[in-house]
């Protein structure tokens, strides 16, 4: 049997992760150079469409490794299935894209087979009969050459962008697909995945907001932020803050305005209890109208404010909110 290089492609909910094509491009080159045959494997609950898609790529064979236990990704399930598979197929080299999922299970897979893993490689070259992989160090300043000294199967992953997925060689005739049922013992899977959800999109893009109510240290306590929020709601605007507020964790960092946060230019910027250090000013001085409320008449915010109110924000803000609500209804 010829030596093989196996690419484990990644799919999620029946959709191919395109980075897999980059790994296939690399694998095609390696196979040619080493004189190995190239095979691919797809793993999951039912992976037929992805296997069909991969079969169009120039590979000798595609394995569709299926089991109901693999419907949802778990490291335990994937390792169990791939361990059996690589043990029986004995490829020389197993290549994977360096995705989050691969990062999760590949070290475990290699360890389960008592082999080593070269992760996040950006390239390879043939040196004699040996494959040498290149990895980046010191944030890309350095490249280290590494190679396997253990017996095969060898495991390696390629960094996204190291090869071009659109350069993958396709074949006129589809590669044969072999379906394999994986024996995965449900009790070996120690994690129970729940529903997959998308992280809520960032709720706010402050740069698009027309009205911003921004709070500074003058707000004194975390609970008082509600006062400003109520005002923002009444105005139909967004809430934002200067650094000390976000620094204390009273508002998330993506609400921070200034040199270390967002730069905004809304129609109206209401600065509540913000002294107006230059670090803040540079983030909001482009606002069309600036209204500042501060108890310190000498606060530098008044130098750039179009309207300034010297007074206690705890008196002014609730009254203002109330008036706005009345006017609206």
């Amino acid at each position, binding site marked *: 049997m010829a030596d093989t290089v196996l690419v484990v492609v990644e799919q999620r909910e029946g959709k191919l992760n395109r980075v897999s094509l980059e790994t296939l491009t690399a694998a095609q080159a390696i196979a040619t150079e080493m004189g190995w045959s190239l095979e691919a494997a797809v793993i999951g609950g039912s992976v037929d469409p992805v296997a069909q898609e991969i079969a169009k790529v120039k590979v000798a064979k595609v394995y569709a490794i299926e089991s109901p236990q693999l419907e949802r990704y778990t490291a335990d399930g994937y390792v169990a299935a791939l361990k059996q598979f690589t043990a029986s197929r004995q490829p020389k080299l197993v290549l994977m894209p360096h995705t989050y999922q691969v990062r999760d299970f590949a070290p475990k897979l290699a360890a389960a087979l008592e082999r080593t893993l070269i992760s996040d490689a950006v390239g390879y070259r043939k040196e004699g009969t040996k494959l040498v992989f290149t990895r980046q160090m*010191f944030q890309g300043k*350095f490249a280290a050459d590494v190679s396997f000294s253990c017996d095969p199967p060898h495991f390696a992953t390629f960094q996204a962008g190291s090869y071009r997925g659109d350069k993958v060689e396709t074949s006129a005739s589809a590669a044969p697909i072999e379906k394999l049922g994986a024996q995965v013992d449900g009790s070996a899977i120690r994690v129970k995945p729940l529903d997959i959800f998308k992280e809520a999109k960032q709720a706010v893009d402050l740069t698009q907001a027309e009205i911003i109510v921004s709070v500074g240290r003058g707000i004194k306590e975390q609970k008082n932020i509600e006062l400003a929020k109520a005002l923002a709601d009444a105005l139909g605007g967004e809430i934002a803050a200067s650094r000390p507020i976000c620094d204390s964790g009273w508002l998330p*960092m993506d609400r*921070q305005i200034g*040199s270390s946060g967002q730069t905004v230019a809304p129609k109206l910027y209401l600065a509540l209890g913000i002294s107006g250090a*230059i670090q803040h000013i540079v983030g909001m001085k482009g606002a069309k109208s600036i209204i500042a409320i501060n108890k310190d008449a000498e606060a530098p915010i008044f130098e750039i404010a179009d309207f300034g109110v010297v007074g206690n924000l705890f008196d002014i803000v609730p009254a203002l909110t109330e008036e706005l609500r009345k006017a609206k209804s």
Partner: protein
Amino acid sequence: MIFRTPLPNTERPQMEADVVIVGGGPAGMACALRLSQLIDEHNKKNPDWPLSKENIYVLEKAREVGQHCLSGALLDPRSMRELLPGFEKEAPIDAEVSKEAVYFLTERSKFKSPITPPPMRDHGNYVISINKFVKWLGEKVEQAGITIFTGFAGSELLVENDRVIGVRTDDKGLDKQNQPKSNFEPGYDLRAKITILSEGTRGSLTKQLIGRFTLDKECNPQTYGVGVKELWELPAGRIAPGEVIYTAGWPLTNHEYGGAWIYGSKDNIVSLGFVMGLDYRDPRLDPHHVMQAFKTHPFVRELLDGGKMIRYGAKSLPYGGWFSIPPLAGDGWMLTGDSAGFVNSQRLKGIHLAIKSGMLAAESAYEALVDGDFSANQLSSYQSRVEKSWIREELWKVRNFHQAFEHGMFEGMIHAALQQVTLGRGLHERYTSHAGHKRLEQIGHLPSGGYGREHMLGPAKGDGKVTFDKLTDVYHSGTKHDDDQPIHLVIHDTDICNTRCTVEYGNPCQHFCPAKVYEMLEAADVPNGKEIHVNFANCVHCKTCDIMDPYQIITWVPPEGGGGPNYDGM
């Protein structure tokens, strides 16, 4: 508050190195360059057993070479001429010193010294931007084939059996809680045959080294000053390129040590700064405020009027002199530049000494590489090189200079004059000194009111034209740190800050820090109603807090590499 510490129980990439130089300032760059020259010569003479430069690395915590370098700066070219003869032709030199003047200031007037005292004679020196100069040196180092890792700090010294075996670099991608973020990258263990510390003033690894081996047991305590600097763009014709002005006196009183410099550079740029000894008594004194007060003196205000402040920065400097310098080498390590304390406190110059010390360390490192011996015995050749060099000659003459000022400016001047005629000896063979922070007096022991120091106490307000409040100045330092990382100003016991220090010293950290890192904020459940808050993202890496804190409970450690000031053109 969670403080930065190398993440425990983490597997770290290991890397072998021949020489690791920590810090890419004048000392580190000169060391790398000299080492490269010696290796080139060696390889020419011994083509059959060449030495490689591949495993010689310079670590630099700034994102770009030179960005954390701050100085006046005047360069005494002596060592550069030895390192790169004819360097003047290509180095970024702004002007040659053409004119000097020394003034003594009172609040309203100035008195010009009829002669320029010999140590202040700067003819033949160059006005440079240390930032540009080091950037240029860095290019030379890279061209020579030595790798500079910018954005990497040394976070820990690796020590095994009392031997320094290398350096651990900073962990990247830690959040405020010191927990790994998704972009976490553990620091590297660079295992080096020779570790050369050129971290600059009050180096954090140098502090670990000195502490671990009590290297300072035979030394006078190191004493420091802090320099606060602004770069100004002035209307044409105010001050000539190469014109140098020094002042003493106001705003300081007889009991504070320090003075100002004004250097004319090219293109109407002027470097202006105030250095003051970190051995003052009043804990409310604020070196940034002193600098602002200085600019309100009619003489200075007139000079600056209509100009524009374009950059700000601050840095401490060691000026304890010869008797404060610890042993310079040991098993696997050497100390160079400001980390060792090579500053001539009388001339207030150290760049030329830093460069020379880096060169001498390189010579010893080269011999060690050839001999394959990295022991204390072998590397002690660096100590003897320094002692036989003009570094010792220059520093020996001023060995007692700074100590003489411990009891005030006027007494100090008398001692200094005596030392001048006795080749540096003065009244005693070895003048002793005290660590500056020990001289701080408790608030309760001070006279009431401002007692003539009102203009230096507490925060400066700033008029926005000639004078500035601290935050405005900090903005002009270009300082940036990732906000989501642990605090790198490690306070070992914040209870002391909120209780004892508030009562005894009134939290001087708020005042001595030139970047408004430390604030006392009102808080409900603390005994004195105020609680320490650390705005670490403002930190300009000057190390003043590590030096001046009266309880010595602050340890400055490097933040995530790449963070810090941006001293472009400074």
